[in-house]
């Protein structure tokens, strides 16, 4: 078990190191100069600026963007600032620091993601496991067909359909936003209900989207476990149906599902980000889009870095949980 933990932590550290270094390298590789972009935008408003002023602006911008000094110096100061959580001010809401914007948006994304991922993963495992065991049951077929259809649709598209039906045609749910306009965020029941009301459609899109593929995979796993020697022996011993279903089939099929979850975290995360744009949901996704539109270099960097760290950490957490699911790793 020790070797397992060490290897997972090594991967984690490498991911963070390589990922963040890539964040550093890529913008510099492409030769795009963020300072120029900003200066151009400012220049678009007026014809003439005192060159001295522009030089001064350029200097401070370069410092702000960490573009001063040699590459190595930049790299080191990059890491220094990162560890302090300082990404500089954002362009989108100058001079609000990037970290503040990220922290404002993060709870929305996290809340949405955590709930939907857990729900869709658990649901698909449960239903998929049962459907795999009772292969021939009448209710299994339509359920499978539904999942097959749904699996093909990226949930961003699914959400568009949902918006059309339940927001536009039959206005039950709001089309956008995290909460109603003009309402002040507070911890009152009213606000919470409002939030849930707004979060419903986005959440349902993600849940259905993830559920589809998970169901099919789990069903396959369940069928495979069903034909294992130990399941057959359980049937020989006449253990009751419930035990076989939960302790044998689902419990064993769960192992690769945990691994699959860890691997798909990145995709689930980015998919949710795209979804947020559709709903103008006030999470990291919408923030990222605004950053891109505004060529807000710092903000993009900030969000990217936090995303890499976030996804890597979540994966590591799942890696830590895995030994508790698989006794063969726990006791070597």
């Amino acid at each position: 078990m020790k070797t397992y933990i060490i290897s997972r932590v090594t991967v984690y550290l490498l991911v963070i190191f390589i990922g963040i270094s890539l964040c550093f390298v890529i913008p510099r590789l492409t030769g795009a100069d963020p300072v120029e972009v900003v200066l151009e935008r400012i220049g678009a408003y007026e014809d003439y600026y005192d060159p001295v002023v522009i030089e001064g602006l350029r200097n401070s911008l370069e410092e702000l963007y960490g573009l001063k000094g040699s590459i190595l110096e930049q790299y080191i100061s990059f890491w220094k600032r990162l560890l302090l959580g300082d990404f500089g001010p954002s362009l989108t809401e100058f001079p609000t620091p990037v970290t503040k914007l990220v922290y404002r948006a993060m709870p929305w994304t996290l809340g949405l993601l955590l709930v939907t991922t857990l729900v869709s993963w658990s649901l698909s495992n449960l239903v998929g496991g049962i459907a795999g065991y009772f292969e021939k049951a009448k209710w299994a077929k339509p359920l499978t067909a539904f999942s097959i259809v749904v699996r093909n649709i990226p949930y961003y598209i699914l959400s568009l359909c949902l918006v059309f039906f339940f927001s536009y045609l039959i206005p039950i749910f709001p089309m956008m936003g995290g909460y109603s306009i003009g309402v002040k965020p507070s911890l009152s029941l009213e606000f919470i209900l409002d939030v849930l009301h707004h979060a419903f459609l986005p959440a349902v899109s993600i849940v259905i989207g993830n559920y589809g593929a998970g169901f099919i995979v789990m069903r396959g796993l369940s069928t495979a476990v069903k034909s294992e020697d130990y399941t057959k022996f359980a049937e020989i011993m006449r253990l009751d149906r419930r035990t076989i279903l939960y302790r044998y089939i689902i419990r064993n099929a769960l192992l690769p599902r945990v691994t699959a979850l860890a691997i798909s975290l990145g995709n689930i995360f980015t998919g949710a980000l795209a979804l947020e744009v559709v709903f103008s949901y006030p999470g990291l996704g919408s923030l990222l889009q605004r950053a891109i539109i505004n060529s807000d270099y710092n903000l993009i960097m900030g969000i990217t870095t936090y995303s890499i760290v976030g996804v890597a950490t979540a994966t590591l957490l799942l890696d830590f949980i895995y030994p508790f699911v698989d006794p063969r790793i726990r006791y070597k």
Partner: protein
Amino acid sequence: MNINEIIQVNNVHAYYRVIRRAKESYVRAVDGVSFQASNSEILGIAGESGCGKSTLMKVLYGLLEPPLTLLNGDVIYKVGNENISIKDDKFDEKIRWKVCSYIPQGSMHVLNPVMRIRDHFLKVAKSHLKERFDEKEIYEVMEKHIQSLGLPLEVLTSFPHQLSGGMRQRVVIALATFLRPKVILADEPTTALDVVVQRGILQLLSKIQKEMRSTIIIVTHDMGVHAQITHRTMIMYAGKIVEIAPTREIFKNSYHPYVRLLIDSLPVIGEKRRKSGAKGRPPSLLNPPSGCRFHPRCPFAEDICKKKEPSLIKISPSHYVSCFRVGRD
């Protein structure tokens, strides 16, 4: 049925249904087998691979999953005053694992990898005992049972992968004897184990039989196992019984040519003579030879052997052979 009998097997024909090129044909794994098993005996079933012994075990336990079908015949268990056949509705509930248990081949992999050993026992108890029971009581019973089979207490809290092959085999035997069944069907219980462990398992089975007065039916191709613990041995060939007798007689005084060749081929300490086995290979069960199935390989084959199938002839009260040459003497 004899008072002392516990299983009666009547003319069982159990085939595997195979569809190839849109035509239906049958692999005749067990082709007309009849015998009885008595209380408190160890009966061995021997024969080459593919002779039908494992299929016979499945039939005895009523495991008739497609493509295996019971075309003909019956297996009847005598329990108390009742005769329950495998075709009965209540066979599953009353006999399976309670009166008769089944240890399939390959016990390495029959334990649930994510469940502790004690949970295996608890689940067996829970699934079979109708009344609510106190977990602590059952746990005590478990511990005693485990220990009587030569296993340390730590086994109960372990997971299967933490145990060695021999220990896992013992656990499976423990599970099979937990509900004190009258019959235990063991299919190749010692294959894949080294000889020392093998001996331990066999002694264990012997001990169980003596203490619980149960019947054990062991299937194995290893004649050494039969020599060690079985009381009676039954030799099968190509889906049929060719000889059945007390084990001593099989080894010292057998009649069927196949059995003689089998026994003669076993190595004996001190003997330096060259060993010979039977020529050729076992026949296909899709299309068995006409008449006596052994005739293509039998050194004594005669005309009649090719045309008619021999039936089991009684040589002595407990010794039966299926061969035309024997009936004549």
